[in-house]
């Protein structure tokens, strides 16, 4: 029988049997179904029906205190920020419908880059459509074939994805371990281009990097250094520039990556640098070029917010007070926290497994408190946690209320002793 006949006798109606593309998710789908079958709410499907302020929303008809946003400096409802956004919306329209390098750069995007340069005291700034794209673009573009990216094992997904988009060799070191970083660097070919990628605050455990130790090590091996200050902008350092400023090494950092979706209170991403060739990246960085630019109202709100954050010393001080009080209070109640001391505006309450974490999360929600539930792979292997992120607009009374809810939920779910 020749091939032609065999093909000819297959009935025309029979569909070809290709593998089901969803098969690879079967174990995860099963795990999720099992969890939801226990009757708990889906922690990844919350809807905010109304948002009343940076710290309060209505979820399922219930007034809820928000302790799981990135709104560290409470800028989302700042009257000046909102006024700037409204004005730009009316003057420049709802969107740019174009790439930054074609028709998508308005004076507002330039003004925003000027605000960033002033904020960081640096020569160059590039505004991206999100922080995710800023990491994706800068990491993949700077490190090419034959170069090395050396990154912390607990790096954010956007940094990993930047590695996967590019062609460099990727080397990991153990989280926040300076000795391990040096060990890896020492093994790499001395002549190869190197980009060391660090974060100021690691967003899952809320711990900060020893940049004052790591940055000089990276320099010793001739590497360029990129620090993602997504969770530290506005809060750390005298001018709010981040952990590198607070630890006195900002002048040795080559590129700072940041986002407008946290302390700035809107959406967008950026890279600032003193490197004289930074602006050239606009032409070769695909996640910058091949996507539409931010709407005029968004860059206007960001600009106003960034300029206000330069003088937010009092807010920074209050946010630290909140973080210290909540950390101490949670410990006194008997919860296990990821860091011995409050290191940032993020406090992670560790729980032994997914079911306990979800039960506690749901009990808090029912009492009127929203926190983030996080699990691997967003967290390190085996770590289930409730991430609490504080806002400079949380009042001292709200922090006490929050502690009361943790006590009630912890006792009700057996997470802390009766």
């Amino acid at each position, binding site marked *: 029988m020749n091939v032609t006949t065999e093909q000819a006798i297959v009935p025309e109606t029979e569909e070809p049997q290709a593998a089901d593309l969803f098969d690879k998710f079967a174990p995860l789908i099963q795990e999720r179904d099992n969890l939801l079958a226990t009757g708990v709410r889906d922690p990844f499907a919350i809807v905010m029906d109304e948002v009343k302020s940076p710290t309060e929303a209505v979820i399922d008809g219930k007034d809820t205190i928000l302790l799981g946003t990135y709104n560290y400096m409470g800028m989302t409802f700042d009257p000046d920020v909102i006024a700037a956004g409204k004005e730009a919306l009316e003057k420049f329209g709802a969107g740019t419908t174009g790439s930054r390098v074609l028709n998508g750069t308005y004076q507002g995007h330039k003004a925003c880059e000027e605000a960033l340069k002033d904020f960081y005291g640096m020569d160059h700034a590039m505004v991206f459509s999100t922080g995710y794209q800023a990491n994706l673009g800068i990491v993949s573009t700077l490190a090419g074939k034959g170069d090395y990216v050396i990154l912390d*094992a607990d790096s954010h997904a956007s940094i990993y994805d930047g590695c996967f988009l590019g062609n460099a*060799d*990727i*080397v990991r070191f*153990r989280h926040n371990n300076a000795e391990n970083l040096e060990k890896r660097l020492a093994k*790499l070919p001395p002549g190869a281009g190197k980009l060391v990628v660090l974060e100021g605050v690691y967003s899952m455990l809320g711990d900060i990097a020893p940049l004052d130790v790591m940055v000089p090590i990276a320099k010793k091996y001739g590497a360029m250094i990129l620090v993602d200050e997504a969770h530290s902008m506005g809060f750390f350092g005298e001018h709010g520039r981040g952990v590198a400023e607070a630890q006195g090494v900002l002048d040795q950092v080559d590129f700072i990556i940041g986002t407008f979706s946290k302390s700035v209170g809107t959406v967008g991403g950026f890279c600032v640098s003193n490197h004289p060739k930074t602006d050239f990246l606009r032409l070769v960085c695909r996640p910058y070029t091949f996507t539409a630019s931010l709407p005029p109202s968004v860059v206007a709100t960001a600009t106003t917010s960034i300029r206000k954050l330069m003088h937010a010393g009092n807010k920074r001080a209050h946010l630290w007070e909140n973080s210290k009080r909540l950390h101490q209070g949670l410990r006194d109640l008997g919860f296990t926290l990821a860091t011995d001391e409050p290191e940032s505006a993020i406090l992670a309450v560790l729980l032994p497994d997914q079911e306990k974490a979800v039960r506690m999360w749901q009990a808090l929600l029912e009492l009127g408190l929203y926190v983030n539930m996080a699990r*691997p792979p967003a967290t*390190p*292997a085996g770590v289930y946690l409730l991430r609490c992120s504080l806002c400079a607009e949380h009042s001292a009374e709200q922090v006490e209320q929050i502690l009361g809810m943790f006590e009630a939920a912890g006792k009700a779910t057996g997470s802390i002793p009766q």
Partner: protein
Amino acid sequence: MTDRATTFASVEALIEPFNAKGVELGESTTFAGDLEWDSLTVMDFVASIEDEFDIVITMNQQAEIETVGQLVDAVEESKA
């Protein structure tokens, strides 16, 4: 023991703490299939291999390694 056999034995010892199922280890044992490791377990394990042998295994190399035998070969090559 040959160098390779010594490396194999050390790798085996490093696998043990991650071998929750007590799978019998051989050249062709796969990390994802037989040992059922997820990406985070692989990441921790590779870090312990790098520290033990004082080598670098890039993520690019790691993507090509599926079996214990292939890992031992990669370690041997990096040590050379």
